């Protein structure tokens, strides 16, 4: 077997194992309370009969491992159970929201990735001069703020003071693509700012690392323009670390979405999750937690795979 295929298969198997373990962890995370869900829902004053009824209807009278396997099995078949708070089918409520969340995340990704790489190149080109310092200062400031505050700062200035965009992102299926784009403009801007800093810094570091190689000096001595050297000679060799950082930040984007959706009252998965955490609606939290963890682990796995595939030494073994 080709060594790279073996490596990829190994990595995929490891990723699946990790995912399985993560699902156990999420399940266990909701079991550590001394009481149980029935107690939490009905409160301290519930009669023993009511508690027993509720436990039986939720399947809580079975041992934990049996509940875990039945939960995992139905989740794998697309059945995420019913919400405790309103008895609705979770998979049904999630599907529309998931589409909204993915739309927001992809808009943010489509802006932030090219921008981060371009700014990274620019920072290397003008290294230690004012464009580099300015970019560094802005990114440092944006890291120092939690996402939700960044959201309100952007909302205050761009929406309330300047009135460019709506402050609340209402979105529904009847809207055209452009209307939707206008609605998510602010949350997408904030998400871009959140991930831009890290991506740009890592791009800069990766390219600077390559810039010390002998062939860069050759290119310099040939008399090429600095930007050409960076874009044509340094960039291709820095692709692997850059792609890696991009994927990790896209994974992070999925988490950042949770908070930003609450700020802009955007009807996505994140808002759904946070709402149901305060309602102590465990099945919904488990389902959302599992989906977010899957996306996060999947992105990180993809980053690893791209790093393996983009390494020419692994692709063409001696």
């Amino acid at each position, binding site marked *: 077997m080709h060594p790279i295929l073996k490596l990829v298969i190994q990595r995929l198997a490891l990723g699946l194992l990790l995912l399985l373990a993560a699902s156990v962890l999420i399940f266990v995370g909701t079991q550590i309370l001394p009481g149980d869900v029935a107690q939490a829902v009905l409160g301290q004053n519930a009669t023993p009969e009511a508690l027993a009824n509720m436990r039986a209807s939720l399947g809580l009278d079975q041992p934990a491992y049996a509940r875990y396997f039945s939960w995992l099995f139905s989740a794998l078949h697309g059945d995420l159970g019913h919400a405790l708070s309103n008895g609705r089918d979770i998979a049904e409520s999630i599907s529309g929201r998931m589409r909204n969340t993915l739309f927001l995340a992809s808009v943010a990704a489509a802006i932030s990735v090219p921008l981060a790489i371009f700014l990274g190149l620019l920072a290397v080109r003008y290294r230690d001069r004012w464009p580099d310092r300015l970019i560094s200062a802005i990114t*440092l400031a944006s890291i120092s*703020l939690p*996402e939700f*505050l960044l959201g*309100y700062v952007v909302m*205050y200035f761009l929406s309330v003071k300047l009135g460019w965009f709506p402050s609340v992102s209402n979105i529904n299926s009847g809207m055209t693509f452009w209307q939707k784009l206008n609605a998510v403009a602010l949350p997408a801007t904030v998400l871009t700012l959140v991930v831009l800093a890290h991506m740009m810094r890592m791009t800069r570091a990766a390219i600077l690392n390559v810039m010390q190689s002998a062939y860069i000096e050759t290119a310099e001595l040939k008399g090429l323009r600095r930007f050409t050297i960076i874009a044509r000679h340094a960039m291709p060799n820095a692709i692997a670390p850059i792609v890696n950082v991009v994927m990790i930040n896209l994974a992070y984007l999925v988490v950042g979405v949770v908070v930003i959706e*609450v700020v802009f009252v955007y009807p996505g998965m994140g808002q759904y999750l*946070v709402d149901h955490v305060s309602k*102590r609606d465990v099945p919904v939290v488990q389902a959302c937690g599992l989906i977010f963890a899957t996306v*996060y682990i999947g992105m990180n796995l993809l980053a690893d795979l791209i790093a393996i595939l983009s390494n020419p030494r692994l692709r063409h073994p001696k």
Partner: protein
Amino acid sequence: MKGMPLSALLGLFITLLFFSVAILAPAIAPYGMSEIVGDVWEPSSAQYWLGTDNLGRDLLTRMIYGGRTTIFVAAMATALSFTLGSILGFTAAVYGGWVDQVMSRLNDLIMSIPTLIFALVVLSVMPVTLPTLILIMGFLDSTRVFRLSRAVAVDINVMDFVEAARLRGEGRAWVIFREILPNALSPLVAELGLRFIFAILFISTLSFLGLGIQPPAADWGGIVKENREGIVYGIPAALVPAVAIVTLSISVNLVADWALNRTTSLKGGRGV
């Protein structure tokens, strides 16, 4: 302290200022924490320096008490994560073999779930009280400390003086606390600042989502949550915590940067 650059001194000064205001909050704050003193969302004036909040409480007072809670929770969580993470990390490095493998893989597993999501899952069944919040934050953050301290300790563990201690017949506890800990302290101290800032951001986020500090107690994230409605009417009360958080985190970062540079240059030009 000698030869400390101006930026780090400034950072240290502001950080200490924040901490002393937090400790002395009841003496400094002009009004009581939940005392309603004026109209809703009054602009800043000589009487109310930062104006009033959504219920007519003095915003400066809320900020001072809020800083106290936020800094306290973040500091406790950081202390917990460092104690837990570094001891476990050193243990993994010193024992090596399957102990190290099991601990490291378990750590990878916990880190594979985003911190916020994990915290939300656990908070959905736990009562939201200060001790639970500190425990959850400290535990989740200790995975990052574990990773760093294990990496540092693995390097130190193969040095000659550790070998000498082993040959003297010292036990593992001695090796961990008397040989490795003093030598791993500097990189860990630099990391401490960053973890503390992360804890501040994290507890603020949780409070903002309504799953952190519960009202009527004040904290920076909660102040944003309480005053968020005002933003749409152009009332910037909700943005005041942003200024406090940015100032504190840049100050701590300046000190941490200095600590990191100092430790790397001591070790002979690593990372310059």
